[in-house]
Structure formats: structure tokens, C-alpha cells
């Protein structure tokens, strides 16, 4: 049959193959609750930093790290936004987990910098202010990071 297949039919079939891959690429992302939960925890830790003692802050930070580690591993850096499909690692790209991790490191750095800036400005609750600022970055930036990963996957497909 392959011998009788026309150029147009082969092109149409390849288009359908690409469309199938795109349908799966569209599923790359983190669930919305992940970003909202992360932002809420960030604010919670910020508030604790301003009002609680060192022990409470340390315990809350370790607990946050442990829970986040467990949750983010399950979400596999955008490969399983829903329970409907798990995207292959080679489709998402090897750099996707590093990009998400890098984003979180950047957020931590911004939190520290914003906290010092607020403190230098004489703010009464610098950690709370910094965490609110970063929580907004999480909600705005998180989905954009995943969109960039999806775009990267589409570009890799077309190469």
C-alpha cells in the first residue's frame, strides 16, 4: 500500500502525527492548585518569620520543604497536570525539571532580597511584605514558565 500512497496522503498522515503530539504537549503544565498552594505557603512562611520564634520557623520551613518535595516529584515537572495523561519525559524535554527548579531558586533569592529591602526601608513586617510580593510572582510567573516549556516542546517537535 505504501507504494500507492500519494504525496498528499503522506503529508496528511504526517500532519495527523504532529497533531497527536501537539495534543499531548498542550497537557504540559502544573495544576492550578500547585501554584496557589505554593503562594499560600510562601506567605505563611513569611508571616511566621515576622511573628514566630526560631524553632517554629525552622520546623515550618523543613515541613514545607518535605511536602513540596513529595508533591513536586509526583507532578514530574509538568508531565502530569491532570490524571488524564502523563507526558513522556523526552517530549517535555530534559531541561524542564531544571527550569522549574531554577524558578523556585530565583523566587527564594527574590524573597531574601525583597525582605532586606523592606527591612532597610524600615518596614515593620519585612518578611511578610517580601512573601506577598513573591506570592504574586508565583501566581503570575508559574503558569508562564510552564507555557515556555510547552513552547520549547513545540519548537523541538518542529526541528
Amino acid at each position: 500500500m505504501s507504494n500507492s500512497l500519494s504525496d498528499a496522503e503522506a503529508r496528511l498522515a504526517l500532519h495527523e502525527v504532529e497533531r497527536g503530539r501537539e495534543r499531548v504537549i498542550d497537557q504540559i503544565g502544573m495544576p492550578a492548585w500547585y501554584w496557589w498552594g505554593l503562594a499560600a505557603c510562601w506567605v505563611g512562611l513569611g508571616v511566621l518569620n515576622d511573628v514566630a520564634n526560631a524553632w517554629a520557623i525552622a520546623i515550618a520551613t523543613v515541613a514545607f520543604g518535605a511536602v513540596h518535595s513529595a508533591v513536586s516529584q509526583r507532578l514530574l515537572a509538568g508531565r502530569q497536570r491532570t490524571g488524564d495523561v502523563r507526558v513522556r519525559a523526552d517530549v517535555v524535554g530534559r531541561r524542564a525539571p531544571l527550569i522549574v527548579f531554577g524558578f523556585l531558586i530565583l523566587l527564594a533569592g527574590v524573597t531574601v532580597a525583597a525582605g532586606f529591602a523592606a527591612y532597610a526601608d524600615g518596614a515593620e513586617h519585612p518578611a511578610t511584605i517580601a512573601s506577598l510580593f513573591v506570592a504574586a510572582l508565583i501566581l503570575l510567573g508559574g503558569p508562564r514558565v510552564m507555557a515556555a516549556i510547552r513552547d520549547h516542546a513545540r519548537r523541538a517537535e518542529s526541528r
Partner: protein
Amino acid sequence: MKDGAGFDELIHPATRLSIVALLAAADWADFAFIRDELGLSDSALSKQLSTLAEAGYVTVERPLSDRRRRVRTRLTPLGRKRFVAHVAALRGILEATEAAPV
């Protein structure tokens, strides 16, 4: 069912090609996800999956751990191999046409 040079007649029909292409980009996909993405009826998708499963191209699982009644499908290594060969055969047809003297 397998034709020469990687072209696979079992995969090639439009609906089955769409199903296999979708599964090729995923570790697994839920039955309902494939049905909704491709706009198929339950019976139409079941029929195509049965054909692919009989050929050993896909597996259909029902995870016991899941409280929801899910049916999870995935491409087997054989199915993936045949899909890759089929896509290469389709590209070969286009390349042969482009290389042919006008």
C-alpha cells in the same frame, strides 16, 4: 499487516494513526482523554483499541489503586517501534517525491 519499508497498514487508517500518534507522546493516556481529544464515541475508540491491542501495539489497563473507574492505555515497545517506522516511511514518501525530477 506490516508492509515493506516500515509502512504499517494497521496503524495507517486515520483514526488509528491519531490514537497511536497521541499515545506515542505520552507514557499513558486515559481512555476518556483520547475519546474527548479525538471526538470519538466510546464504542468507536474501544473497537480501535481492541484492534491495536490484538496486534500487541497497545495495552489497556484498569488501575486498581484508582478510586475512579479509569481505563489507562499505553503504547507497547512493539507499537512504538512500528509507529516510528511508519512515520519514517511516510517521510520517505515525501522525500522521494521531492527528489524526483520534475
